[in-house]
């Protein structure tokens, strides 16, 4: 039976245990050859190389004024193409905002008296909203919303309905002083529109084809 007391050096392990743990193992040349055989099969591209410094790029001819100009040209071309695509998408959209009239509510419908002075006041109070029809027409449109002063520029609160043949429309009660608005197409593309007229006369900002 072995002595299980701790090592004389103060380590919590018996000396014979330490010796047994440190006993050499059979490291055969066949095992080492097998490792090298696998190492040789590793493709050069799989080896992780240290990051190449700029000077080495330069020595290899990859970093020179010509390649730099070519890289910048490619980047400019990519940005230009993206801008062109965006502009083309915006150009293909037709928009219209039609003020159909005032939302005058008859005083009788709200139970007010027919007194002349009160009629004038109630008419002025109720006649603060206008009925505006927003129309958008264009290809590849999946959803349209209107944002503006009248809804606090909150997306999703006023959406246009699809009428077919690429035409979208909505009739909205808009406060008289809310003039600025814009369309949000496909939830990402913002299409600006001219502000609504201050007068109550019906206004068409697009051709009759809309």
């Amino acid at each position, binding site marked *: *039976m*072995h002595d*299980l007391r*701790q090592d004389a050096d103060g*380590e*919590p*392990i*018996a000396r*014979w*245990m*330490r010796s*047994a*743990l*440190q*006993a*050499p*193992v*059979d*490291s055969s040349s066949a*095992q*080492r050859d*097998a*490792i*090298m055989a*696998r*190492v*040789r099969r*590793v493709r050069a591209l*799989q*080896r*992780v*190389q*240290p990051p190449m410094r700029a000077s080495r790029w330069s020595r290899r001819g990859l970093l020179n004024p010509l390649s730099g100009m070519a890289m910048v040209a490619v980047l400019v071309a990519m940005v230009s193409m993206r801008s062109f695509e965006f502009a083309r998408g915006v150009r293909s959209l037709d928009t219209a905002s039609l003020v159909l009239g005032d939302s005058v509510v008859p005083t009788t419908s709200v139970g007010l008296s027919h007194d002349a002075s009160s009629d004038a006041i109630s008419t002025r109070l109720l006649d603060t909203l206008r009925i505006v029809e927003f129309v958008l027409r264009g290809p590849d449109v999946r959803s349209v919303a209107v944002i503006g002063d009248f809804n606090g520029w909150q997306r999703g609160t006023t959406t246009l309905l699809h009428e077919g043949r690429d035409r979208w429309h909505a009739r909205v009660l808009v406060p008289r002083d809310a003039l600025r608005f814009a369309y949000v197409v496909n939830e990402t593309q913002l299409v600006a529109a001219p502000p609504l007229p201050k007068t109550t006369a019906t206004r068409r900002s697009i051709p009759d084809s809309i």
Partner: protein
Amino acid sequence: MPIAVMSEDARDVRRVLAGDVEAFALLVDRHHARCLRVATHLLSDGDDAEDAVQDAFVRAYRHLGSYRERDRFGAWLLRVVVNQCRTHAAKQRRWSSSPSVSANDLLAHDSGEDVADAESTREELTRALAQLDPAQREAVVLRFADELSYDEMATITGVGVSALKMRVQRACARLRTLLSEHYHA
């Protein structure tokens, strides 16, 4: 590790990184036995240990670019070996099982009149090691089989020094209990 060996490692690593694949054989020859001994104790199985060490060397070769010369190559390699052993153990689920191969098959044979006693000793110790918690076994093997300092062990395992000391203490106590039960059985 002697300074001379450290510089040899660094020189060989530079040669490998420069494209001399055969220089890696020098590193394999120099460190294979040590890695195999640690892996054998960690996995309690000679075949698994050999597979783990082989995988570790190939992995080390592939990631040699991430090795920095300010580190000791031996310690860096041992970290790869320990990680590979953990992976193998997780796959094989051998941490909690008894060794399938006798320790006598795994470890080199001594010469002289105490051969039988030495073999018996190793077998008992291997069986006891196999019953340890994996983290405790890892700590006790690195501490005593490879004679690493606690700081080196912390670097390799990613565990704090105080936690490693506690693991070693508990592992040794558990080993004593297991071996005394064996002797009294």
